[in-house]
């Protein structure tokens, strides 16, 4: 199986010379299926594959491959309905095009755990339509009824006579036929590939060291570029030594950009040496005294200022006044960094009449738009070549590094490869924003939750993505996990039924750039709510599992994952010596997850050892279980990394954290056993890239409380924080 980056400009019609091509065009009425002939007449397909006379079925993958195995999973959906032979499937990365938009996110963006659930139906229909046309072509050739023919493994067979024709032999005739608009989909019991673990098509080349990431792109005659960036937020250059930089052997250009001073050179080594020789002097930036303490103090002060009302159901104020017991707590979650293993990079070639961008991007259409604007040429002259991504995590949906590449290539008049160092990647990340929250809740005499009043202070994520989406001071994306955009299919809401519920939001305005980070704010928000729910259960004298289930009576999917995780983890049984369990649940992006953490605490050095995490998920139907399990493992590990270790350090108005020696990620020895239970579910399909992340931190914090009787209301639960909390309690 071979996959490669397509550099073919096939929206312009350079299709396979002969063969059957199936696409679908999204219309306001749904998907309209198109034959190859129709598409050449100017229709723009969304989802494509092509069958050529050599029997090869090439599937174009609209999503970015960043480790989730999407090239395999999407191809499986087509192959199944098409009745193709998996051995004859090839994948190609699709170019940037409106036609490739994911109907769920209405963009060609690999975000929101939306690839499989968004493309599932269009790809099934496209595959089924192709199968039907191939059968029709065979029946026509044999002059027999279509229902006497069977498509299987890339061959149509006439059942009575045993005559056979391969898809390769049929594809040219099939291309001339009308494509059915409402193809008959297979029954689930007839699936050949969907639901079975199929090895990923991208793994052999990754293991061989032959896979091409953005970092591995080479264009003849290219220069390498590095940018000297401001050490503090908002800092502007006061002066720099251009001569010293150009004196470095191999340095070609010094270019002022909105990001800093760029240096283009014959080699990366020369670009870096040139950058250092600039010795840029910067002003102090917008908040020179900013550091972790000042940030937290600022957030705490904001908590007492009035915000915007997000939700107001019932009368929380009155219900709180009438409550038999009140519980109040303040939580703080610091900013964390993406730290994709492949630092930001891209290669750009701006020429007189075209602009080529080779980039590991989650958003090829966004890349196309910004490149068009910066290069000053129409979007149809911009060609985005999406490479493999060395992690995405949300960081690569932002186009800042692409803008930088276009500016530098335009200025240098040559292809330019921009490579960020790890230090640049961390210091100039768009962070998962910090959040500070206060909740006051009321319990009645029976320990039932009657009121919940919740104040959130955090920056707006949408203000940089789509400012129009911030309405009356409310940015739902920053509130995901507590409240979702009206009408969102993802249901990133608090799952509990709370009779009197009030939610208020104040957008924080510190000049720290932010962006979505795997699960967006579902993770920090779930840390707060799922820790607090345990606080309430404790105050009510109830078991945390039972307390949750009471509030989820009408939420079958959330209840059953909780029950499953609890049962498999031995919840309610006596814990073994020195160990404690903690439970949490959260649903987002259409998937329901519960996790139980099994931990022990070293009271001498403050180290929390997580022995095991039991995960139960309900994501509806599963296409490729192998990569799905890998996503769960990876999500749990990333969630645990933020629970125990991650926190960006700020100092002197900028970012102090610089590399993996001071921004620590979870290591192998710290990784617990992860036991996964996927519910056999016929419910609506959800995503899996992100939902495993949010329950991890609260499950660990709740286990810590159960182990020590100490509630920690901040992350990370690192040794210093743990020791301080234990000392305070004593």
């Amino acid at each position, binding site marked *: 199986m071979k996959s490669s980056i397509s550099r073919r400009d096939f929206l312009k019609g350079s299709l396979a010379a002969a063969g059957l091509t199936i696409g679908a065009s999204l219309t306001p009425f749904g998907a309209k299926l198109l034959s190859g002939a129709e598409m050449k007449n100017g229709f723009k397909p969304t989802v494509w594959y092509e069958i050529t006379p050599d029997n090869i079925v090439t599937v174009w993958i609209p999503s970015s491959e960043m480790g989730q195995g999407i090239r395999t999973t999407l191809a499986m959906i087509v192959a199944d309905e098409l009745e193709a032979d998996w051995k004859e499937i090839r994948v190609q990365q699709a170019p940037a095009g409106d036609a490739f938009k994911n109907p769920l996110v209405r963009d060609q963006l690999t975000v929101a755990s939306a690839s499989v659930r968004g493309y599932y139906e269009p790809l099934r229909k496209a595959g089924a339509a192709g199968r039907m046309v191939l059968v029709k072509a065979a029946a026509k050739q044999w002059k027999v009824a279509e229902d006497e023919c069977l498509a299987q493994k890339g061959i149509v067979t006439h059942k009575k006579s045993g005559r056979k024709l391969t898809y390769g032999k049929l594809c040219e005739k099939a291309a001339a036929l009308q494509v059915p608009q409402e193809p008959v989909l297979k029954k689930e019991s007839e699936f050949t590939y969907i639901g079975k673990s199929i090895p990923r098509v991208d793994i052999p080349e990754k293991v061989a060291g032959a896979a091409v990431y953005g970092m591995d792109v080479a264009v003849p005659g290219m220069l390498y570029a590095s940018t000297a960036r401001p050490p503090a937020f908002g800092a502007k250059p006061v002066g720099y030594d251009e001569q010293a930089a150009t004196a470095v052997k191999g340095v070609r250009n010094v270019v002022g950009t909105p990001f800093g001073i760029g240096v283009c050179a014959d080699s990366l080594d020369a670009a870096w040496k040139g950058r250092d020789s600039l010795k840029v002097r910067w002003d102090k930036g917008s908040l020179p005294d900013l550091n972790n303490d000042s940030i937290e103090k600022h957030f705490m002060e904001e908590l007492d200022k009035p915000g915007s009302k997000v939700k107001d159901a019932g009368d929380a104020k009155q219900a709180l006044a009438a409550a038999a017991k009140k519980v109040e707590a303040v939580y703080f979650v610091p900013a964390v960094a993406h730290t994709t293993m492949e630092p930001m990079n891209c290669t750009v070639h701006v020429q007189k009449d075209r602009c080529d961008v080779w980039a590991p991007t989650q958003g090829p259409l966004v890349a196309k738009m910004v490149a068009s604007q910066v290069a000053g040429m129409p979007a149809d002259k911009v060609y985005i070549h999406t490479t493999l991504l060395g992690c995405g995590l949300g960081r690569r949906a932002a186009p800042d590094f692409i803008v930088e590449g276009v500016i530098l290539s335009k200025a240098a008049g040559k292809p330019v490869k921009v490579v960020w160092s790890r230090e640049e990647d961390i210091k100039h990340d768009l962070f998962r924003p910090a959040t500070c929250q206060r909740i006051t809740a009321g319990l009645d005499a029976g320990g039932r939750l009657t009121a919940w009043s919740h104040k959130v202070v955090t920056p707006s994520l949408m203000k940089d993505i789509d400012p129009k989406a911030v309405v009356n001071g409310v940015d739902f994306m920053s509130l995901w996990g507590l409240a979702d955009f009206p009408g969102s299919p993802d249901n990133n809401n608090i799952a509990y039924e709370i009779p009197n519920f009030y939610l208020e939001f104040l957008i924080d305005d510190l000049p720290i750039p932010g962006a979505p980070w795997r699960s967006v704010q579902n993770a920090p928000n779930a840390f707060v709510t799922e820790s607090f729910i345990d606080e309430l259960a404790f105050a009510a004298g109830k078991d945390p599992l039972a307390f949750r289930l009471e509030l989820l009576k009408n939420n079958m999917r959330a209840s059953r994952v909780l029950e499953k995780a609890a049962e498999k983890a031995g919840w309610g049984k006596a814990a073994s010596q020195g160990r404690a369990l903690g439970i949490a649940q959260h649903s987002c992006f259409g998937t329901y997850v519960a996790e139980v953490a099994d931990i022990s605490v070293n009271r001498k050095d403050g180290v929390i050892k997580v022995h095991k995490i039991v995960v139960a998920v309900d994501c509806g139907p599963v296409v490729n279980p192998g990569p799905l399990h890998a996503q769960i493992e990876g999500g749990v590990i990333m969630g645990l990394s933020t629970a125990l270790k991650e926190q960006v350090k700020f100092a002197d108005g900028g970012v102090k954290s610089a*590399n993996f020696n001071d921004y620590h990620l979870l290591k192998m020895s710290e990784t617990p056993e992860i036991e996964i239970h996927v519910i056999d579910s016929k419910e609506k399909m959800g995503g899996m890239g992100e939902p495993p992340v949010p329950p991890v931190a609260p499950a660990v914090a709740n286990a810590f409380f159960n182990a020590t009787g100490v509630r920690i209301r901040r992350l990370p639960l690192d040794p210093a924080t743990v020791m301080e909390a234990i000392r305070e309690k004593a």
Partner: protein
Amino acid sequence: MVSLRVNGKNYSVDVPNDVPLLWVLRDHLKLTGTKYSCGIGECGSCTVHIDGKARRSCSIAVGDVQGKKITTIEGLPKDHPVKRAWIQEQVPQCGYCQPGHIMQVSALISEAKNPDPDKIIAAMDEMLCRCGSYPRIKRGIKTAVEIVRKEGKRS
């Protein structure tokens, strides 16, 4: 001029002696399987074999490895037990750090008289993977050691 022996081939490259070996492999010899991630020897993505030992190519000046035997991920045979195990266990996610992990594990296996998966796993904390492929790396290590026990070592 720097002379290098990489994957059994001899190269001369016109670069300053202080350039990290990593960038010479990637940008001059076009052996891009060896990855840059931290540049300070903290993550292991750039791991190669130098005279059979796993070393961080980001932190070694190219001038210091002249005359030594350098092996990169591209030079490790396709049917090497670790590569086979990595495919069998479907270890990589994004895969960016995996050449480094494979080079680390393959060196540890060939160095050990009787490779012990637990000892190898214990030596993996010098490596980082952001996707969280650790559980599968562990499985990959166990499978690779099983293959070696069955078929014998190979370099």
